[in-house]
Each structure stands twice: as C-alpha cells, then as structure tokens.
C-alpha cells in the first residue's frame, strides 16, 4: 500500500516538474490562496451579522441550508481549494529544503524580508489546526453534545465567554493576519499584478486588508467576552 502511494506520489511530482514547474506551482498556490481569501471575506460578512442581533444571525445558516446543492458545491470547491493550496505548499517546501541541504554556519541575516514572509509555513500550520478546531467547535458542535438544541447565537455566547477559547481564536487570527498580509502581496507578485509601479501600493493594501479583516474577526470573541454582545 505504502509502495503504491509512493509510486503515485512520485508520478505526480514528475508530472508537476515536467509540465507545471516551480513557477506554475506558485501560480496554483496564488490562485487557490485568492479563492480562500474570498471565502474568508464572505465568512466575515456572515459573522458580522452577529452585531445585528440573535434573529438575523440565526437566520443566516438557515438561509444557506435552503440551498443545499449550492451549499455542497461551495463546500466541495472550498475543500478542494484548501487541499490544493496545502499540497502545493508541501510540494514546494520539500523542493526548497532540497535546494540548500548544507546550511550556512552563520545564519543569514534578513535585511529585506518581513517576519510574515519568513513564517508563512508556521502561520499556515496554525491556520490548519485552527480550521480543524473551528469545525469541531462550531460546525460539528462536539463540545456541546449535551445541548443539541442550542442555537448558533447562544453557542457563540457560551463559547466565547470562555477566555481560553477566546484567546485561542485571537492567536489563530493573528496567524491569519501574518499569512494573509504576506500572502496577498505574494499572490499579486506571482500572478504578475506587480509589474507596474503599483507594486508598493499592492503590498501596503495587502497589509491593511489583512489587518482590517483580522481586527473584525477578533472583535467578535472579544465583544462577547467583554459582554458588548450579550444574550
């Protein structure tokens, strides 16, 4: 079985090397990253309805469930995009590790790169862990099986009154900020949108875009913890 998986993996790698190359692999990462960013935005818009009150917020998931085919299509697309993004990251990381096996004696001193750009892999790992936790926590409601009738609004209130959950969410969002702030400009560069004089503006826009998205995401658990949003 392991030999079969290894042989399939090696065939896929050879195909990528001969047809797509490291440049094409980055283009796939950029495109899937852009799709995931769109999802993050749509998800944020959905979350912001929490500020509009219990009824409006609870009606949002019901509205989505009224269109099961579209919902499942979106879900499958999202899962496919997410897996493609991660697979390409793993593929490229493995190749990149092989490109410098013997390291420098003195570590290279960064003079042009940002902290976010050097830690994309780690912030990515945190986001994967967060997505799994988020699904277990709020989608499958595994922590609240004794309370199956809890509506989503109440579930949010109960969850984020717990400071540990809130802190974990905040840390995950900071990782998202790091990932998004570099990912935005990196994707723009890979998709060659920075060929003109707008390069610096795109980088700046990417930073502020990630910052605002993160602050809005963080505002929800913090508002609940500080009881700005209440029962």
């Amino acid at each position: 079985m392991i030999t079969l998986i290894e042989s399939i993996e090696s065939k896929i790698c050879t195909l990528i090397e001969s047809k797509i190359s490291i440049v094409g692999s980055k283009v796939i990462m950029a495109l899937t990253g852009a799709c995931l960013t769109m999802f993050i935005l749509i998800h944020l818009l959905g979350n912001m309805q929490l500020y509009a009150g219990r009824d409006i917020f609870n009606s949002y998931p019901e509205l989505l469930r009224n269109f099961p085919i579209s919902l499942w299509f979106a879900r499958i697309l999202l899962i496919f995009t997410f897996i493609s993004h991660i697979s390409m990251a793993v593929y490229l990381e493995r190749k990149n590790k092989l490109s410098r096996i013997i390291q420098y004696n003195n570590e290279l001193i960064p003079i042009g790169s940002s902290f976010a750009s050097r830690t994309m892999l780690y912030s990515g790992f945190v986001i994967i862990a967060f997505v799994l936790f988020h699904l277990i926590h709020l989608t499958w409601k595994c922590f609240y099986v004794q309370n199956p009738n809890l509506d989503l609004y109440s579930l949010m209130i109960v969850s984020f009154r717990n400071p540990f959950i809130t802190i974990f969410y905040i840390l995950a969002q900071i990782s998202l900020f790091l990932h998004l702030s570099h990912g935005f400009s990196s994707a723009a560069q890979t998709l060659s949108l920075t060929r003109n004089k707008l390069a610096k503006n795109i980088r700046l826009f990417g930073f502020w875009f990630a910052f605002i998205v993160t602050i809005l995401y963080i505002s929800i658990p913090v508002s609940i913890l500080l009881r700005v949003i209440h029962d």
Partner: protein
Amino acid sequence: MNLRNYTLKIWRQKDKFSPSYLDTIQVKDISPDMSLLEMLDVVNNHLITINKEPIAFESDCREGICGACSIVINGIPHGKERGTTACQLHMRHFEDGETITLEPWRAEAFIPIKDLVVDRTAFDRIQQAGGYISVNTGSAPDAHSMLIHKNAADEAFDAAACIGCGACVAACKNASAMLFVGAKISQLAHLPQGDPERKRRTNAMVMQMEKEGFGSCSNTLECEAVCPKEISTKVIAELNWEFIRSINN
C-alpha cells in the same frame, strides 16, 4: 593612520568531496582603506610565508562589474553595504577587533570548488537554455533601424544590469534563482528583438532552472535587498507573466 585588527572566521573546504570547517585567523595591521579582497590578499601573503594553504576566493574586476566575488559576509551576501559587491566593501565598515565570518554561496546548484569558491555554471546552463536571441550574423545593423520606445529601453537596461553574481540565490531562504532568471527574461522581453522567441525562451529557462535544483520564489524580497545592482523584484513578476503567457505554447 589607525591600523585595525580583526578575527576572521572563514569557511574552508579542500574540494567538493572534503568536509568543511570554519577556520579562525587573526589578522593584524589592516588599513581601513583596504577593500575586503585586498585584506584577504594580505592574509594570503602571510599564509604563504608560513607555509599554509592560502584562502581560495574569486575575484576579477574588483570594481563591482564582473560579479566574480561571491562571499557571504557576516550572514549577508556581499556584506551589509547596499548596492555593492564584496570587492567594493572596505574595511572601514568593520569595527576594530570585529569578528568577520566569510562563507561561500550555499545552494545545492552551486557546487563547492574550494574554500569560498563555488561552481556557478548552473547560471550559464540556464542562459544557454534560452537567454539569447537567434540572429543571423553579419555586419552590425544601423543604429536606428529598429526604433525602441525609451521606456522599453530603460526597462530592458535596468534588467540587463544583472551581473549574474548569484547573491540572490545565496540570500534566498529557498536558494531560488528567480531574480537572476527574471532579469535575463525581462531584459529580452522588453525589446522587439527578443519578442519572437519569448515563449520558448521562458519555458526553456524555467525548466532548466528547475533541473539545476534551485528553489521556488516565496516573494520574501531578500534577493532584491542584497542585489549589488539593485535589480527590482518586478522582474520576477515579469518572469511569472511570461511563464503564464507561455503555458499554451
């Protein structure tokens, strides 16, 4: 003149098959007006007089044009001065008594030859794969026979400033050669002479880059910061664009 003393920690390696080690050498009475390479010349003279193996390092023009000097100085390719090569770095930029670590470019595609010298023919092979224009030889054409827009000429010239030293690879956490390949592709893509072969050229050069074992570009911009000719990462965006265009080729 205040002469200075330094402690050098230098990567020594007899050949590509031998193990490497960091040699510590005390150097005395160095003029701050010497360049780093002149200081190494002084050290080598001393090593020869005491019957020790001199430090192998590359140099040619010693004025920042040829790109031969390829040394990582205290963790930064070509040293901490921006927009200069190692040969243009003078000892006045180091404090008296400072420890200076000198290492060669490190990448699997750059095979060590000896001490600070690495084999950079991987770059030549990328160039041979497509970094040229196919023209009939003969007498030089008239200077204005092919009009080129000033902006295009400027863009091509900026990219053509690349001296192929390999600092971009040395500084990149992935040992990626995208800035070098981007510069070579961009230089020709802006000019009408390079237009007919642009798709074939991009494909061939990218595939050769992959074959040589260079890593992918994470867009950290470290290459741009260490480039002695300050080539902009815009050329990488242009390489990406040329690659996307060449997909249906």
